[in-house]
């Protein structure tokens, strides 16, 4: 019986480490047997969340860490990215589609995260730190893959064993 991939990572606040996170997450997504396009876009969302944590959360402070947790909860892929920064107001983020923002070189990361995941929410610790939680619904096929055989599959296997 295979078990769903569970990942916990803690990285230093360097943009070079975004690539490391991406590689691990790609491998974890492969184990979920997601559609390759979905896996690509989830990978981009993770990249954006970690990059934001490094740049805007921890402001590249080498003394601060970014943590990532990846797992399957209640039929959903759940990815949490935590920083140790001062927090921000999600409602205050500019809409990158507004005509005055289209030619800005930055400000698209959160938009992409929202676009590529099913749900995103933020929470903020009393002493600082932002946790962004991103969820992607998994269909039953992926859940079977992640959680081991379904009852039907187990029955089939028993029959095969004869």
């Amino acid at each position: 019986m295979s078990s769903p991939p569970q990942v916990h990572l803690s990285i230093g606040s360097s943009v070079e480490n975004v690539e490391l996170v991406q590689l691990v997450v790609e491998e974890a997504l492969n184990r979920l047997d997601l559609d390759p396009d979905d896996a690509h876009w989830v990978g981009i969302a993770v990249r954006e969340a970690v990059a934001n944590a490094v740049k805007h959360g921890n402001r590249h402070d080498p003394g601060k860490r970014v943590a990532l947790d990846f797992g399957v909860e209640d039929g959903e892929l759940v990815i949490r990215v935590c920083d140790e920064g001062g927090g921000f107001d999600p409602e205050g983020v500019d809409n990158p589609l507004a005509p005055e923002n289209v030619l800005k070189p930055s400000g698209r990361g959160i938009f992409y995260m929202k676009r590529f995941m099913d749900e995103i929410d933020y929470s903020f610790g009393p002493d600082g730190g932002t946790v962004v939680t991103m969820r992607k619904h998994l269909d039953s096929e992926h859940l079977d893959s992640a959680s081991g055989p379904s009852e039907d599959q187990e029955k089939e296997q028993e029959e095969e064993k004869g």
Partner: protein
Amino acid sequence: MTISVRQTEGFTVLDAKGKITIGSGDVALREAIQGALDAGGKKILVNLKDVSTIDSSGIGELVSAYTSASNRGAELALVGLPPKVQDILQITQLVTVFDIYDDEAEAMSSMG
């Protein structure tokens, strides 16, 4: 990410390969485009045919490149967009900003 620069028929062509992402390609792209503009390039093609992944930092560099080129009286176009690069430009409505061509020949014919 690797990026190579070549001159052909009055065009400066930047061939990007790999990922244009934060910490891995975004700065290289910026420097290559700045170099092309500093060298006096007036018609610049960014060939994205072999780009596998682009994130918001990479998109930001393309937007900055477009603005820098415009400010210096140069034309900048994107060619050979893989579907995922096309998609990510589409959803932030940047396909209406950039001049985008299927390939170099089409860009050169159109930009003359």
